[in-house]
């Protein structure tokens, strides 16, 4: 026993030494050094697909900024950690980035679940926290003062244009019933329930309202209920794979809705193949269009395509937008380091409007953007903007062709 205790004491001392020796390299706010920006992203795990998209957006931003001379005359450098889509890790990551690595700025992670815990770390260290993906309303109810969402609208407002369109139809054509199936995730549920609230208020009856956990793989039970109810409208609060699974399960049961809307999934490049190319008429909200006429968007699409060999999607655009917002604040405040500078950055973002690839963005007191999403639809084998009318690329198709 005593021997083991001695060994224990030795181990303890060794580990303590290892600990204290581990950190300690300071990088101050020297003007010759690059501006280091800390990011934690889910590069593996549940959110790895969109996480990688955001990463490309960030990388494209850093390259474009550096190619044109950097920020405040300094190059920018991204330090990206992988949080495995795990909330414990995301907190430890930002703790490490801010507390140990002494990064000058931070960008947000992906997904609402990870945004809230990491925003708290940033808040308690007093860092500006612009994030590309925390779209659910919960994010803005936490009382964060340093948080800004770099996209046009929060999840609950994604379908606003669609709801208006449906409710404006003549009474004899308007759908009567709707079925909702949403993943138990704040973002996915937010989109579906935002539409649900508006349709219910407009007199469209909810016949099925299902919530499934993120790890659901068998959708036959949910599909059976939806098909049995024969709802006119189907709304899926989905991420990606769950939307595909639900559609395939519904196809297996031969259910044909007049209108089907899914969040995120239909904009994925793999989507058409995954549902056997039976995509015609499927709807999806989006905050970004490659063809949008905003001044910075042309440059973004061009250089992104040159860098990655394909055009940017919504996730990439959101990452890029985050960079644009922070860059605007840094340029205006004339500083980029921890400490008092962060307060200046926050105050600037709160008071100003930023021109981005998704249009001009401004925020209310909680960091919520004041805009709405466009609605896209699969028409003739391609996904096109159909709503709102002033930016449409194709006519809205209703009722939806069979899948």
């Amino acid at each position: 026993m005593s021997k083991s205790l001695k060994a224990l004491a030795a181990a303890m001392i060794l580990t303590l030494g290892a600990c204290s020796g581990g950190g300690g390299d300071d990088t101050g706010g020297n003007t010759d050094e690059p501006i280091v920006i800390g990011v934690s992203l889910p590069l593996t795990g549940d959110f790895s697909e969109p996480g990688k998209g955001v990463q490309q957006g960030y990388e494209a931003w850093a390259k474009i900024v550096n190619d044109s001379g950097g920020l405040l005359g300094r190059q920018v450098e991204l330090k990206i950690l992988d949080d495995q889509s795990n909330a414990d890790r995301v907190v430890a990551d930002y703790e490490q980035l801010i507390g140990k690595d002494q990064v000058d700025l931070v960008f947000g992670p992906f997904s609402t679940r990870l945004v809230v815990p990491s925003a708290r770390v940033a808040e308690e260290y007093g860092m500006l926290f612009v994030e590309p993906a925390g779209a659910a309303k919960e994010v803005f109810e936490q009382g964060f003062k340093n948080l800004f969402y770099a996209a046009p609208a929060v999840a609950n407002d994604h379908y606003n244009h669609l709801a208006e369109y449906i409710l404006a139809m003549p009474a004899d054509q308007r759908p009567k019933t709707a079925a909702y199936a949403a993943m138990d995730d704040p973002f996915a549920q937010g989109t579906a329930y935002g539409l649900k609230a508006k349709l219910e208020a407009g007199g469209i009856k909810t016949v099925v309202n299902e919530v499934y956990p993120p790890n659901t793989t068998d959708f036959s039970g949910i599909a059976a209920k939806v098909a049995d109810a024969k709802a006119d409208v189907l709304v899926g609060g989905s991420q990606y794979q769950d939307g595909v699974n639900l559609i395939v399960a519904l196809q297996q049961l031969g259910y044909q809705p007049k209108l089907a809307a899914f969040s995120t999934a239909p904009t994925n490049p793999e989507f058409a193949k995954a549902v056997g190319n039976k995509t015609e008429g499927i709807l999806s909200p989006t905050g970004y269009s490659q063809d949008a006429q905003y001044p910075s968007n042309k440059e973004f699409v061009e250089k992104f395509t040159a860098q990655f060999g394909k055009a940017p999607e919504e996730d990439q655009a959101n990452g890029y937008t985050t960079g644009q917002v922070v860059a605007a604040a840094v340029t205006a405040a004339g500083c980029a380091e921890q400490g008092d500078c962060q307060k200046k950055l926050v105050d600037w973002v709160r008071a100003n409007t930023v021109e981005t690839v998704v249009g001009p963005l401004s925020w209310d007191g909680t960091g919520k953007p004041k805009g709405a999403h466009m609605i896209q639809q699969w028409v003739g084998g391609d996904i096109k903007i159909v709503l709102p009318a002033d930016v449409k690329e194709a006519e809205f198709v209703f009722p939806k062709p069979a899948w």
Partner: protein
Amino acid sequence: MPSGALLFQSVLLGILLGGLYALLASGLTLYFGIMRVVMIAHSAFLILAAYLGWWLHERAGLDPLLAMLGTVPLFFGAGVLLQRVLLTRLRPATLTMMSVLLTFAIALLIEGLLGYAFTGTQRRVQLGYGSASLEVFGARVAVVKLIAFGLAVVALGTLYVLMKRTRFGWALRATIQHRDAARLLGIDTDRVAGYGFGIGLATAAIGGTALSLDTTIYPSLHWHWIGPLMAIIVVGGLGSVPGAAIAAMVLGMAQSLLQIPMGTTWAQTVFYVALFATLAIRPQGFFGGRLAQRF
């Protein structure tokens, strides 16, 4: 009150699901019978087989059903090795506990390697007949689900014939019933136990193929299978293959029907409720083997 059509549809789905559960639980029961080992890694191997099927389909365009030709023998060999090389190293006195930890470690290993090789992204085999279905008295049955169920029935039938009609099956059952006595009768119980493990793991290969036809797979999925499967073998009585099969059908059906009023998440709790109820009321299980009493 749900409509008759929905009820009938759910009953059909319940039968199809129960069949798959029965196949998978049979493997777990075999391990327990042979060595008193609770094989946590069973469902990890299941997911591994599903991944192999998916990978061959992505890379070579092979139908997952053909992949079974490779995975079944491979898994049989892995099972034999697992038993002969690893499990026999454990101290007999603490075998049950330590084997749980060891197989648990193997499950983590498989999950980690799958995550490393294929990332955590959900995967799905895209088959030409993926959304095809047959009509059965107004309800619809997906072709892929029918194939999965067919696989389960064939595999279970083969296992039954093997156990009841062949010399090896007799030896295996003798080993399960009384290892020492079997040895006295001249049965090479070590070898039989190894082959028994191989067969158990082969069922995981078949089950994994069945799974890959119709659902999404991701590395940590195995935890969502091992829970229900363990509940099934306890409810059925540890070590009893028919008991596990009956419990699998009953619980699979219950899950499918409970989904109508309760939703998918709460319906899954039926397995755990059944598990706790069984342990509190009848720890030896409802169809159970005499073995269960002491474990």
